[in-house]
């Protein structure tokens, strides 16, 4: 009986600690839920972006993909993988709205993997457009180096 009472007292202690933690968590949740300012672009991978582009609609994003600057602006795309463009898997791509100057500026990066920063416009993954959306207001395209082999040292 006494043992049972001690167990109940201990349970009450545990319960009060748990309740206290819950109150703290709720308080913290309120502060976490407060509006936060996004400083700089949202860094997101192409797979996440292609899976739920509507989540990033109208937002400044930064992602990595395979760059194709075509012969005309309408052929400019960012692909998940190089192979997706070879196999016409267009939903695995975003159109790129590049200016004439940008097309010249970034031509040297054509057919390489690049980091693109811009604003995503998308109707969602099931949109009727051929690709999954378009990246506009492109601020920057930079080279992505997955592997840079070093020269062997000659002794």
């Amino acid at each position, binding site marked *: 009986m006494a043992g049972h009472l001690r167990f109940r007292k201990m349970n009450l202690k545990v319960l009060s600690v748990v309740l206290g933690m819950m109150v703290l968590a709720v308080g913290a949740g309120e502060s976490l839920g407060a509006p936060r300012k996004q400083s700089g672009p949202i860094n997101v991978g192409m797979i996440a972006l292609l899976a739920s582009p509507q989540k990033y609609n109208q937002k400044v994003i930064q992602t990595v993909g395979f760059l*194709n600057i*075509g*012969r*005309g*602006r*309408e*052929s*400019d*795309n960012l*692909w998940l993988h190089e192979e997706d*463009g*070879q*196999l*016409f898997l*267009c939903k695995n*791509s975003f*159109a*790129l*709205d590049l200016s*004439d100057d940008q097309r010249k500026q970034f031509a040297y990066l054509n*057919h390489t993997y690049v980091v693109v920063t811009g604003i995503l*416009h998308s109707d969602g993954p099931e*949109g*009727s*457009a*051929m*690709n999954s959306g*378009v990246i*506009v207001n492109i601020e920057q395209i930079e080279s992505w180096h997955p592997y840079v082999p070093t020269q062997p040292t000659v002794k």
Partner: protein
Amino acid sequence: MAQQQIDHVAMSAEKAALRLTRADLKKGIHREYGGWIIQNNENGSLSYTKPVKGQEALIDLSKIPVPDGFTIVGDYHTHPHTTSTEGLGADPGDVESLRGIARNQHLDIPGYVADTFSGSVYRYTQWGPPMPKTMYDTNPFGVKIGTIPPD
């Protein structure tokens, strides 16, 4: 229905679309225009839907409604080109777009494209000619059917 008849209506559609695309380009706006070439189900006459402005770097024709009592027999659009290096005719994306129409709407229709720089109008199909090898193919696709000079 003779291909020549559709070509004739396509030339008129492209003329209307090129005028709008060229007007936008003068303001520094690069936008494609396009629409459907349609046939009246009752009397078989051909016409086209008014050219509609596309988004930034593309036009989604599937968003353009087809009037009741008409059947789609082709599509048309423009390329807002300012230099000769941007090329003539259709690109792999255009051909792939027709493949999408064939897959989703079970329609094997011709497409027409005209670029603002040359004014050349090309007819192409999901079969080419020639067939694009990849989306990175820079060859022109389709057959030239005419030219629309600036107004």
